[in-house]
Structures are given as C-alpha cells and as structure tokens.
C-alpha cells in the first residue's frame, strides 16, 4: 500500500480532529470538553506542519508556533473559568451553566 506521506499526515490530522469533535459533542464534563478542544487544536497544528513539509516552506511551522501560544493562553483562561464555575455551582456539568444567573 503506497500512500503519499502528505496524504498520510493529513489523514492522521483528520482522524484526530474528528475524535476531538466527537468528544466535544458527547461529553458533559467541562474539563473533558476543554481537553477535546486541545486535541482539535493539536490536529490542526499537525496539518499545518504536514503542509509546510509538503511545500518546503516555513510558514506552516510558524503557524504551528502561533497555535501553541494560542493554546497556552486559551487553557489558562479556560481553567480559570472552570474554577469559577465549580466554585459557584459546585459541579462540572456544563448543562448547569446553560442559564446565566448573574
């Protein structure tokens, strides 16, 4: 079975992205939803690096570094939000936060 390396890398990125998407859709624990967003970001970065190696241009890797920095900022803010949610509602169920009660 002779698959082109770019095809293989894009396949892996697509599979990881869809797994993260499934997890975001089916989970109700908000920490697991945050982890799934991390999986999806990681898959997108993998696709960028594969594209960079396909064309031999550095732009994809630069974009991967930007994705890394964005993931770090997003995780810090997301964890602070989860902490506030847990302190106010005493649960990690994301359905509990569907109504904003001030």
């Amino acid at each position: 079975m002779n698959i082109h390396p770019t095809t293989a890398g894009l396949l892996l990125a697509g599979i990881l992205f869809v797994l993260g998407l499934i997890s975001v859709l089916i989970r109700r624990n908000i920490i697991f939803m945050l982890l799934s967003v991390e999986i999806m970001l990681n898959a997108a970065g993998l696709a960028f690096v594969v594209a960079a190696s396909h064309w031999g241009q550095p732009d994809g890797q630069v974009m991967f570094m930007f994705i890394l920095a964005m993931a770090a900022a997003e995780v810090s803010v997301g964890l602070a939000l989860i902490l506030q949610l847990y302190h106010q509602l005493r649960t990690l169920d994301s359905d509990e936060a569907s109504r904003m009660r001030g």
Partner: protein
Amino acid sequence: MDITFLIAAIIAVLATVRVITCYNIMHALLYLVVSLLAVAVVLYTYGAPFMAILEIIIYAGAIMVLIIFFVMMLNLGLETAEHEKAWLRPRIWIVPGLFCLVLLGELLFLILQNRQPAAGIQVVSPKQVGMAMFGPYLIAVELVGILLMAGIVGAYHLGRQQGKTLHRFLENNLDT
C-alpha cells in the same frame, strides 16, 4: 510512508480514543500526554524536529502539567468518575458519534482521491522558521505576545477569589 510514522500514528489514534472514552479524568490526562508524545514523533518524521521538541515541552510539559495541577486542586474523587459514567450513556453519544464518523468518511475519501503528484517530504530547518518569523511575520509575533498578556491578565482576573476578610480560625470562632 515509513514504519515509524505508522507506529506513532496508530499509538496517537488509540491513545486519543482512550482519552474520549475514559471516566477517570487523571487516566484521560495521562493518555492525552501519550497521544501528544506520539504526535511529536510524527512531527519529527515530517522533518520538523524543532516543532517536535516544542510540542513535547509546551504541550506535553507545560499545558498538561497545568491541567493536572488544576484537577488536583479541585480535589475530584471517585464520585466524579461515577457521575461521568452516568452522564456518558450510549443514548447520548451514539448519534453525534455516527454523524462525525460519516463526516470522517467523507474527509478520508476526499483526501485519498485528490492525491498530490509531488515528491515526498522536504525538511524545513529551524533557521528558515526563525527567518520567516522575525521577517514577514513580525507583526503576528507581536500580536501573539499581546494575546499571551491578555491570557495572563484574564486568568488572574477570573481566578481571583472574592476576598475573605477573616482567617478560617476566626470564622469558626464566630460561628460558635
């Protein structure tokens, strides 16, 4: 497509599947670290060793350690795993899972059909990345710095407790 890529890709997919089907959050985090390490190996096979090291240091190191310390701070126990088991019934996940699998099938079909004729992998050196980053992408680098600062300030502001004025010892004395 060499054998190292194949092994790392299979490990990454299996570990990610374990992450999304785990009840216990610490086990899920450990599987996620394994998945990130496997993705780092994949990045290495695509001629991006610097990105592989960054993936290990920042993703598998910094971000995962942050989440693990956060989970330890929340002090979730066995009870949360039981809740999770009750929340993750098949009735909930079977329809979105099916839809996503159909979408994955379409994606795989399109990628496999539209095969690129160009030759293999070209290695991009870290020097090229640095030259691009501090050349044409300089404004974007500055914006990422601003984004990180906004993240720090936002995390501090959101995570701040509404200040307790009393020590808990004095509070207990007031109650009695």
